[in-house]
């Protein structure tokens, strides 16, 4: 993407004002998306983002500048701006010599999306539309979206690192509106993987559309969700976001370092029920959060965060790891070349337990069964989190009965981790997610087996 010699000269420029560390992150990303709504393919879009972000670290200060001009002149100007930002003058001369490093790819892309015709991509949308609408006459609206991206990244830094990677992502989503006597209800489903168009050999968009339609139809007969505290059973592959919010963010070293996490200073403590082993794993092939290297050039890896309920480690990026004098964990990620990296999750999940999922339901006298979760958010300092249940049912006398209207579930992270009292043996990954932190979104995956939380607060309106 950029010549070896140019990279060395730009890094040398960046270090000229006394920087202790300098880094170039360059990116060339092409994307295609197509949207269907109201029975029509509304638009096919394509775009290209190309540029470089340069950061210079000096003491506690990080200077950052980015440019869409990838010529040597453009890069040098950005390097000077970042260096000036990091320092108020002074400095010496330090030249940088780069060594290229290669890492075995985590994702094996078979069919690059740019080899597929736009008409084939659009055909998927039309199929999903037909499949959703044929699910019943109450389906009044369908929208579907296809997206692919092909991103090449390059990281070069003053420690001599030079590494490049290619990231391909393909996703598809369907939203459905059903209308009945009691108003409108919605259904949604999506897939997303870090592979190419072969994802559609593995997943059938018709099936995805039917599931979204069925969710909307089921909710037409939903009654208001209860309010107050009840046992909650979460279906496999639908509740990983619970862990993402309840403890994942709190285990990010940047938040821990600022004492903005309830998990600060708790490594070695029993922070969860001993049933719980929580892993963040960027090497999980083809999953939405899978990366060969992170956006600081460090190879992704499998990090065990909680083992049998005991907190084992946090997640780290370059800056935090350097400060603590310990290795990075492959969690330094950023939205684009226009953003600074920070500690982010990749694929975060809870390992299997031993229970039969049916037994978990049968063993619950009165509670809520959550079959599909929407997004969530957490206050890492207090541990209070929320997430939305987009498909849920009552459990009465050990059986799943009536569907419930939408609402939020809330809880406190440390409390909920202790309150997980049953863990199934049916692990599944969930829908692709976009994790937002400090204004930056990055793709993440999550997963878990069917599990039960002894008590959570359900934000419905029924007594």
């Amino acid at each position, binding site marked *: 993407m950029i010549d070896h010699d140019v990279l060395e000269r730009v890094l040398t420029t960046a270090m000229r004002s006394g920087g202790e560390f300098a880094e170039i992150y360059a990116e060339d990303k092409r994307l295609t998306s197509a949207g269907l709504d109201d029975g029509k393919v509304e638009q096919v879009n394509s775009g290209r983002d*190309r540029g470089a972000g340069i950061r210079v670290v000096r003491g506690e200060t990080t200077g950052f500048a980015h440019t869409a001009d990838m010529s040597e002149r453009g890069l040098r100007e950005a390097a000077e701006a970042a260096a000036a930002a990091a320092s108020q003058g002074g400095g010496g001369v330090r030249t940088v010599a780069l060594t290229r490093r290669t890492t075995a790819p985590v994702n094996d892309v078979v069919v690059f999306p740019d080899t597929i015709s736009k008409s084939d991509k659009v055909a998927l949308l039309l199929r999903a539309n037909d499949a959703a609408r044929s699910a019943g006459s109450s389906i009044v609206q369908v929208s579907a979206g296809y997206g692919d991206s092909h991103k090449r990244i390059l990281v070069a830094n003053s420690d001599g690192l030079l590494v490049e990677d290619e990231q391909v992502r393909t996703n598809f989503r369907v939203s459905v509106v059903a209308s009945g006597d009691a*108003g409108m209800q919605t259904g949604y489903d999506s897939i997303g993987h870090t592979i190419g168009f072969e994802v559609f050999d593995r997943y059938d968009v018709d099936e995805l559309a039917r599931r979204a339609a069925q969710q909307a139809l089921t909710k037409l007969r939903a009654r208001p969700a209860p309010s107050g505290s009840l046992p909650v059973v979460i279906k496999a592959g639908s509740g990983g976001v619970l862990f993402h919010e309840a403890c994942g963010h709190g285990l990010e070293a940047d938040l821990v370092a600022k004492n903005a996490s309830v998990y600060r200073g708790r490594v070695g403590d029993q922070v969860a029920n001993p049933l719980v082993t929580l892993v963040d794993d960027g090497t999980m092939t083809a999953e939405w959060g899978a990366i060969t290297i992170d956006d600081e050039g460090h190879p992704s890896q499998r990090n065990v965060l909680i083992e049998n309920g005991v907190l084992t480690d946090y997640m780290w990026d370059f800056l935090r790891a350097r400060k603590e004098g310990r290795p990075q964990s492959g969690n330094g990620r950023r939205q684009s070349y226009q953003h600074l990296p920070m500690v982010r999750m990749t694929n975060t999940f809870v390992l299997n337990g031993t229970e039969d999922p049916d037994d978990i339901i049968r063993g619950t006298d009165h509670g809520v069964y959550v079959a599909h979760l929407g997004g969530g958010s957490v*206050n890492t300092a207090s541990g209070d989190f929320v997430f939305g249940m987009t498909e849920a049912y009552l459990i009465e006398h050990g059986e799943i009965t009536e569907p419930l*209207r939408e609402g*939020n579930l*809330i809880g406190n992270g440390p409390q909920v981790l202790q309150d997980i009292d049953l863990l199934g043996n049916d692990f599944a990954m969930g829908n692709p997610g976009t994790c937002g932190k400090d204004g930056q979104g990055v793709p993440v995956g999550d997963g878990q087996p069917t599990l039960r939380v002894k008590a959570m607060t359900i934000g419905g309106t029924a007594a």
Partner: protein
Amino acid sequence: MSTQQTELLTLAERVIADAHAGEQVEAFVSRDRETAIRVYEGEVEQFTSAQSEGIGIRVIRDGRTGFAYTGTLDASGISGVLEEARDNAAFGTPDPWAGLAQPDGVPVQPLVLWNDALAAYETPPKIALTKELERLTLATDRRVRVDDANYSDVLVEIAVATTTGIRMSGRENGCYVSVSTLADDGDETQTGFGFSVGRHPDELDLDKAAREAAERATRLLGAVKPQSRRLTVVLDPFVTAQFLGVVSATLNGESVLKGRSLFANRFGEQVGARGLTLVDDPTNELAFTATEVDGEGLAARRNTLIEDGVLAQFVQSSYSGRRSGTASTGNAVRGGFKGTPGCGCLALQLLPGTRTQADIVAGIDDGVLIQMVQGLHSGVNPISGDFSTGASGVMIRNGALAEPVREFTIASTIQRMLQDVIEIGGDLEWLPMRAAGLTLVVGDVTMSGA
């Protein structure tokens, strides 16, 4: 915003000059420059100096729309974009209403959205005021820590040109400060935030940002989980503004056309309490999102959406206006050069009442003041109307603020909440959002806690 011939407008015009016979072409060009400073423990932790630019091109032919963008204004980068958009158009489904905006004769109301002094403001005073914000915040209360103190300014230039006769160019700038706080008491930590927005750093109210950030965090220390029941909720201005953002999704003309608005067939009906008047007015210079033109280059204008509780108007883009047999209300919304405009509200506000929040609270026997909500994106569905959100705040008992509460939800439906509005405060506050805030009292909301 004007038809002044800027460099960007020239560039946009050059692109549309290459339109083929029988096609409509729109070029939207933008360039922005941003400075962002983050201070932590008296030191600059991050200093970002950034410039980005790009062009988005839309082509419509035989009712089919295609779009392409590139994140550069280099001649070589732009060269293939029109061709790509043209190619993309071949794959759309013909839509008889597809089309670009046409000039509609509504004059642009000139607003002062540019400040020369901010554009010339030097870096050292920006750093100094960010450090001052951190210092002021720490000085408010010994239990308060600062997570980060931030200064940011942004300067944006845009231009849009279409083969249908739209020519617009303009620029604006602004700055803001924000501070995130943590308050500790024993093992417990709570969080808060404060901010201030201006067209020039002199307009930034650092004291207010510091005080509010500290109050929000300390007020929640010792908070308990309340008992579940129905009661009256008092929404803080910041929460009201977020609520209005949710309501706005139901007043969108495009959602109405596509069967996604719960108010679709309610035109002229009483959808809210009497006394509730909701306007979208981007021509009010005080609004953070004030603008002279919408995302398609038509003049922005004041629209009354709900008047004295009666549904009076949906907002329209040129597409939804054409298709619904009305006209654009100047409400095309555009996120930037990377996408095509949609339809939406630009600068919402409820017409204010007269009383302060303190006076309102003094008249409530049993209620809760909602200071923060969490999970509006996950627990609120503007299509079904279901409304459920995590919340924290302070109980109100016999006209006085009582104990702080957290880890509960408030729930109702959007339809019911609008009908159940009991009072609208007089404390209108302009926030860095698409809606203005004020105190809003809503009856009969379910609180779920213990």
